[in-house]
């Protein structure tokens, strides 16, 4: 096994293992941190796939941004401290059945399909090409994504300000 293989297997195990911990852990804060490891592991997989910019974005946006948001959500809804004794799951049986079936089906489909592969391109970096693409072929989606983010920000702020307004009225 060469280095790439070792790194791949190691981080696949980290990623999937952390995801499993996330799903099955009873403590939701533990879950959040397991998710962090899982996302970071995925970033390493991206690096293995020669997607350096995406890997960096993954770390910045997911590990740095979304995860913090989730932790904020946890703190604001005070789930870390209360109600430890209740069951944390519902529909356990159908959920695990469905998940298992999905896995089997997907793996079967992946393994039996004959993919039309091309020899992997050796790229030193993707940032330059991605930047060119973003500013040429993908300029419209790029702008729309910007508008979407703006709308999301405005919407999130609006919803949370209404929230404080409701709370103030209650007091």
């Amino acid at each position: 096994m060469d280095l790439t293989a070792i790194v791949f297997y190691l981080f696949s195990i980290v990623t999937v293992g952390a995801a499993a911990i996330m799903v099955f852990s009873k403590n939701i804060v533990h879950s959040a941190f397991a998710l962090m490891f899982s996302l970071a592991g995925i970033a390493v997989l991206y690096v293995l796939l020669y997607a350096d910019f995406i890997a960096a974005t993954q770390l910045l946006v997911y590990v740095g941004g979304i995860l913090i948001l989730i932790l904020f959500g946890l703190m604001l809804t005070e789930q870390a401290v209360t109600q430890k004794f209740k069951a944390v799951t519902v529909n356990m049986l159908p959920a695990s059945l469905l998940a298992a079936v999905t896995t089997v089906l997907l793996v079967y489909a992946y393994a039996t399909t004959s993919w039309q592969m091309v020899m992997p391109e050796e790229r030193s970096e993707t940032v330059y090409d991605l930047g060119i693409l973003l500013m040429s072929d993908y300029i419209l989606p790029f702008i729309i994504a910007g508008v979407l983010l703006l709308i999301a920000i405005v919407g999130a702020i609006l919803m949370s300000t209404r929230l404080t307004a409701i709370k103030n009225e209650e007091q």
Partner: protein
Amino acid sequence: MELMITPWLAEPGLVHFLIVSALLLSLGLMAVLSRRNVIMVLMGVELILNSANINLIAFSRYTSLSLEGQMIALFVIIIAAAEAAVALAIVLNMYSRFNTVHLDEIDSLKG
């Protein structure tokens, strides 16, 4: 048997990445379907999005999809960020209205 497994393990190719993504997808599905806490459900959604991203990027490396795959993955990340922000605002609203974040306790329907 020995001969079958060794080359299979030796070099990670397209299918290996796809299988990792399939595992992540079903774990995400588990979280979405079975956890009571709405924030856990959100985390499950993030996991599913990530598994889709692995697929896209794996295809971008091994098939003729090339850089386009990475591009789409980039947009997925952008949209996931927007989704997380809005979803958490919704969760906060939900929490202030129902005083719980457990999805199975929130079942009042209009009409």
